[in-house]
């Protein structure tokens, strides 16, 4: 089996968010970058587990500049076999999806695994867009993936609860919690990652369909109003008369 796992670079979850250039760019100075958690914990690890039990390889791909290489190395250390970096600054989901689809086309991957969303852009858009470019089914918010014969059996979250579906032929999937458990790279993996192939391929020049005018930080909270533990009716009154939420 050959899997393509799409990996995005993301700021560590505890990062203080600040902007530069007139609030038009995220200030990356001093920011620790990680593999987007859904891509790493769920998509990548599940692909590795399947290859470990059934043979094959896992290729990881990221759309980004050279600053993505460390996170690709980290994914290689966890166990991916080969890395590909599509050399373009990621502007929006549409552009990223077009670039990934262009790369994946005709490569014969059995499945393309993504995370359910990036923790910086939070758009949950790349997998479906990629699937449409490739004319493949997209199974969003998948919580498990197994193979039964030539059929992939996937459970996914829907508005009604969890549903089980079967797909024959290649597909795109976005992985949510439940798919696999986090793996910590060990020393051997880290050493091995250094000599694994990391190929840089030119972008095809897909354009973005959106642009960010500026960023803004949310308004500061006025500060907490403390209510005496013996007087919960006061809280009820405030929620009703002041906050007007009940």
């Amino acid at each position, binding site marked *: 089996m050959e899997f393509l796992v799409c990996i995005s670079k993301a700021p560590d*979850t505890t990062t203080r*968010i600040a902007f530069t250039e007139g609030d038009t760019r995220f200030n990356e100075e001093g920011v620790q970058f990680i593999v987007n*958690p*859904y891509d790493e914990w769920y998509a990548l690890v599940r692909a590795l587990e399947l290859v470990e039990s059934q043979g094959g390889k896992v290729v990881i791909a990221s759309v980004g500049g050279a600053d993505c290489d460390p996170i690709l190395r980290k994914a290689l250390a966890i166990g991916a076999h080969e890395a590909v970096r599509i050399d373009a600054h990621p502007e929006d*989901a*549409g552009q990223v999806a077009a670039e990934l689809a262009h790369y994946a086309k005709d490569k014969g991957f059995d499945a393309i695994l993504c995370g359910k969303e990036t*923790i*910086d852009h*939070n*758009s*949950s*858009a*790349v997998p*479906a*867009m990629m*699937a*449409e470019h490739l004319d493949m*089914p*997209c199974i*969003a918010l998948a919580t498990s993936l197994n193979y039964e014969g030539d059929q992939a*059996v996937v459970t996914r*979250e*829907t*508005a*009604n*609860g*969890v*549903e*089980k*579906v079967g*797909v*024959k032929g290649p*597909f795109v999937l976005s992985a949510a*919690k*439940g798919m696999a458990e986090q793996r910590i790279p060990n020393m051997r993996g880290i050493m091995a990652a250094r000599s694994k192939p990391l190929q840089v391929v030119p972008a095809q020049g897909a*354009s*973005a*369909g*959106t*642009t*960010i*005018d500026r*960023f*803004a*930080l*949310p308004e500061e909270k*006025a500060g*907490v109003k*403390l209510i005496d*533990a*013996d007087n*919960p*009716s006061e*809280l*009820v009154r405030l*929620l*009703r008369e002041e*906050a007007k*939420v*009940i």
Partner: protein
Amino acid sequence: MKCIAFIQTKGGQATKASLEAAGLGASMGETVAVVSGDIEGDAGLGAVGVGRILQGPGHLDDSQLARLVSAAADQEEAQVVVCAQDHLGKAVAGRVAVRLNAGLVAGITSVPSGDVYTRNVFSGKAMAHVKGTTDKLVVTTTPNAIGMPEPTGASASVSAFAPELGQSKVEVLEEAKPDTGNRAPLPEAELVVSAGRGLKGPENWGIVEDLADSLGATTACSRPVSDIGWRPHHEHVGQTGITIRPNLYIAIGISGAIQHLAGVNSSKVIVVINKDPEAPFFKAADYGIVGDAFEVVPKLTEAFKAL
């Protein structure tokens, strides 16, 4: 400007998240709704400003729905397609954008001016003001962010719509059992009562359920609580769980770690109940009670019941 609104229905009626999306469309221009399968009357769409409904066949997958919606956009020569950023909306919107060669602005929270949309980024720690750069645009709305428009009293006309939709490549092996609870699903809920490790064990959730019942709220939990199996996974909110933005979020025995806040910090009002006055959650709260959950929560339930 002309809009297509892709509508999801439940029991023949448009979901609240879909009505919000349609209402936004109607505030921007003439809006034609697209539905799949049976609806009751006009599914509540006339009241939010939709004039016409194109009704496609039922039981379609995301790829077929995308064909249905883009065919409608082509037929109506619409510039904007709107839908809710929910499970199905996420799956369909991206495909529609690719089919229409349109930009996609996902999960918007407001429209501050004509062509600028705001959306949350960095897990709610910041906001981006986004514009489309293409002739057509697909916009998805975060549930409970835009709000419902004033009802118009009008109704929408329904006509059958049957473009070429292709075959589904996905076979449903086991359908989800529709949830029987009468509580609103978390992403759409207006009132949420949530608890964390401070509750000590699953046997203590009765007081949380009672509080939720007294308000008609949906229950949620922190991640460790669902990880150890005290509560079902679908209740887990936060960076790795569900993102919610209710009008009221009551957090009981939750410390307020940044990854938890990432999923709830867009709530309009946050109430924190924690026995530790130094708990970080108080910094993100509007109202707080410092006290033992086992004493405070039952009293609060009584106070809500007394309303």
